[in-house]
């Protein structure tokens, strides 16, 4: 049964053109009073370019209408439930957007003298303290631009410390449930990756680490709760083993939204961890960033933190650039400051109790879904989860319906799908993280949709396998995109767009 699109001939609205396919030569939405003088007087014409070929030429309304229409082709937290596992798509408070745009923040120049940046430095200092308190660590650097850069920075800190002790070591142990950035960051830090498997209950056994751990291992990277939404119950024992052999524990704190006020990473024996402010601390994900991935460390590691460090002298703040043992700079200036302002605003609004409540409700929402879907979908691990729960398509596979099909069909019900096919240890994983900012009514809507899809999968599998129908475009040919990549618009024919 082939299914006609809902965008059938009756609906004749055009799909948006590319910005390069609109406009007209000579058009511009911009005016600036001409300065007197000639360019050539100051810059040799040999260094000057001609007009930028095919660059846009549109009016202001044209541009706005183009991007407004594009925006209408996105799902987003503010219009849909967005239970993307491991991504903590919680509400992004509007007040954060207001304060981040205050001229005192948005128009602050990073290389102005520190005396002229005391407000910003105060905020950064206080945010460091807040995050240290929340994570139970000693010191924090706000530099890293996102989680992955936090991982890289954290591993560099470990390496710098080990070098300082005389031996950088060779390996990093990474569980099979880890996010892809963990092994990637390890490699980028010059380490070989040793993968260990989690046990049948989805967590790492101390014994497994015991076996893999030796004097060549610099660190073990642990995600807690892990990507199965399970708390790594043996983390203390593991930390003991690793520390006993001179290694360190790196904690991937992307899932901190499950732990605030419940269990601090510090006491778990963690040496360094990163936080995803664009997850736990409500900064908007922006369709793929910007985010921020601060690292928090023990006292031992603090002298290796990246520069600049913010130092308080009396009631003034200064920047310290020369810290002999520092790993150096991981990016220019101060990190993604605008994002840090938002996180500061969020923590200020919630206070300690609010953060704890957030984590508790995140657990409640996840387990509510887990319970309600457990009869119709196969649970990867049938026990209470933390902030997210993982199902599989095992039951639906009987009628040939896969996780991908279920995800696509959810789009027709107006919900964003869960994260799919991750973590890799679960075949056909559906990783559902509702977050605490969703109401039980919304969860029930989503649950209804999932149950209906389970029924559809039995009764009319084709309906599910051909989904979605209600989206602006339907399933896209990803193979074609990869085979002959077209990565830019070109005025000439698309042919020459293929790789040589």
């Amino acid at each position, binding site marked *: 049964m082939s299914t006609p699109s809902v965008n059938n001939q009756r609906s004749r609205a055009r799909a*948006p053109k590319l910005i390069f396919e609109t406009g007209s030569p000579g058009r511009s939405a911009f005016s600036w009073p001409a*300065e007197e003088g000639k360019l050539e007087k100051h810059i040799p014409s040999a260094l000057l370019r001609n007009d930028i070929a095919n660059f846009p030429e549109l009016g202001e309304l044209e*541009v706005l209408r183009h*991007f407004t229409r594009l925006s209408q082709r996105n799902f987003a937290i503010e219009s849909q439930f967005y239970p993307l596992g491991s991504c903590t798509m919680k509400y992004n408070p509007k007040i954060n957007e207001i304060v981040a745009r205050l001229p005192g923040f948005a128009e602050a120049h990073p290389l102005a003298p520190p005396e002229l940046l005391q407000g910003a430095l105060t905020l950064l200092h206080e945010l460091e303290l807040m995050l240290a308190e929340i994570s139970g660590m000693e010191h924090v650097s706000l530099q890293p631009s996102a989680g992955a850069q936090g991982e890289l920075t954290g591993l560099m800190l470990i390496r710098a410390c080990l070098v300082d002790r005389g031996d950088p070591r060779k390996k990093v142990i990474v569980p099979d449930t880890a996010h892809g950035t963990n092994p990637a960051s390890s490699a980028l830090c010059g380490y070989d990756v040793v993968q260990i498997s989690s046990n049948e209950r989805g967590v790492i056994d101390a014994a497994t680490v015991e076996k893999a751990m030796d004097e060549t291992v610099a660190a073990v990277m642990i995600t807690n709760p892990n990507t199965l939404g399970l708390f790594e119950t043996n983390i203390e024992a593991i930390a003991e083993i690793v520390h006993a052999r001179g290694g360190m524990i790196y904690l991937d704190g992307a899932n901190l939204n499950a732990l605030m006020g419940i269990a601090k990473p510090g006491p778990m024996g963690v040496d360094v961890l990163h936080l995803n402010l664009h997850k736990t601390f409500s900064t908007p994900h922006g*369709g793929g960033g910007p985010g921020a991935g601060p690292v928090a460390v023990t006292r031992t590691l603090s002298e290796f933190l990246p520069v600049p460090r913010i130092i308080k002298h009396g009631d003034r703040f200064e920047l310290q650039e020369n810290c002999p043992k520092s790993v150096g700079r*991981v990016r220019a200036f*101060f990190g993604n400051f605008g994002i840090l302002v938002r996180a500061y605003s969020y923590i200020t609004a919630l206070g300690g109790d609010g953060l704890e409540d957030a984590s508790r409700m995140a657990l409640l929402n996840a387990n509510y879904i887990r319970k309600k879907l457990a009869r119709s979908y196969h649970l990867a691990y049938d026990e209470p989860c933390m902030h997210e729960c993982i199902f599989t398509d095992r039951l639906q596979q009987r009628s040939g319906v896969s996780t991908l099909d279920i995800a696509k069909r959810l789009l027709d019900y107006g919900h964003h799908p869960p994260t799919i096919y991750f973590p890799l240890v679960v075949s056909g994983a559906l990783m559902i993280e509702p977050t605490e900012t969703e109401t039980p009514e919304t969860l029930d809507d989503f649950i209804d949709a999932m149950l209906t899809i389970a029924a559809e999968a039995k009764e009319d599998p084709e309906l599910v396998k051909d989904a979605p129908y209600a989206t602006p475009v339907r399933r896209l040919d990803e193979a074609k995109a990869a085979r002959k990549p077209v990565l830019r618009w070109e005025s000439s024919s698309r042919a020459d767009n293929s790789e040589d």
Partner: protein
Amino acid sequence: MRYTPHTSADREQMLRAIGIDSIEALYQHVPATLRQQSKINLPEAVSEFAVRQRLAGLASHNATPADWSLFLGGGIYHHFIPSAVDAIISRAEFATSYTPYQPEVSQGTLQALFEYQTLICQLTEMEVSNAALYDGASAAAEAVLMSRRIQSSTRRRVLISRALHPHYRAVVATYLRNLPHVELEEIPFAATGATDTEELARRIGDQAICVVLGYPNFFGVIDDLSSAKAVCSKAGAHLISVTTEPLSLAVLKAPGEFGVDIAVGEGQSLGVPMSLGGPAFGFFACHKKFVRSMPGRLVGETVDCEGRRGFVLTLATREQHIRREKATSNICTSQTLCTLAATVFMSLLGKSGLRSLAEANVLRAHDAFARLQKAAKLEAVFSGPFFNEVVLRAPDIERLFAQCAEHKIVPGIRLKDYYPELSDSFLMTVTEMNQREEIERLVHTVGQ
């Protein structure tokens, strides 16, 4: 509680549905030894009004162009941003969506990124661009890493210009420090302020992986990419250009026109507020033949099952979530909303607007420079042509900065921390946002 909608009735009913009688039951498997005994020690929750007051208070303790005359650049520039830019990036559909893993409901973000990739290719005259990286500095580091992946492993030397932004050099060093078989060497700059390409020719040898230059460089000087390219070609090294002021590319020959192999830079100038240096984005463009070695996201064009054009994330086999430790980079979340701002900005200004804005920078900066020379006897340290910033030597620089501060002026960035030999010099930047009166006041103040 703020942002958690659950009423006590909701909580009761949900606990019942789950079949437990307290939330604690949900984390009973957290070892007692790890359970947090004391509450998080932070101030109490406050109202939205209080948050606003609190942050407005902090913001008021930073200098802004509204109350200070700042002649600051050095990688972050104060440029005009049309109000339409923020209107678009504020739309929740863009701001509160995730990385476009589900293309059917992410065509907005995907098409915008495809347009962004094209705009960067046009601006740099390069063949392909990725969907951006964290910032200009990490983009420079990723460029070196990609070059290293592509070049034969016998090559081990990375040559980096000392005239490149000091933060960028530091970041490249940080990224390379832990990797085997690679050494970083600095190439000095000449009296022009440009990289000394003769010295480069002498030093490059046949084991160089790549050469990294600023274009324009940290001194605002327009480096000589054509000589550099000639040297690199002979030596089989990649030439990497790093642009911290992308607005300059609206008037300067594009890196691609010189045959640069990888063109990277900081995108802040293109519609992103200064915001203490972040968030903005790093752009990354190169030859098409390098595409499968590139770091970061790539958006490609395809069709849906009904033949309609659509866009998807593609060549994901390069990336960490598929390739894990063998990935071309560890980057995951990037800076998409900032690239959207740049896409809207470039679309609004367009061919003529971007050029006229760049010209305004050149003319205003050179005008200010000329007056300072005349009135205040400040001399340029370097002789090379510059875009919108220039290094000036001040006999008594302490006094000059102090005088200016009294008049709420910061004449530029002091170079002593970056270049000991330039301890009496500073980098003065003039953009279209520095009003004529400000320049008058600067000239007058410095002239005293």
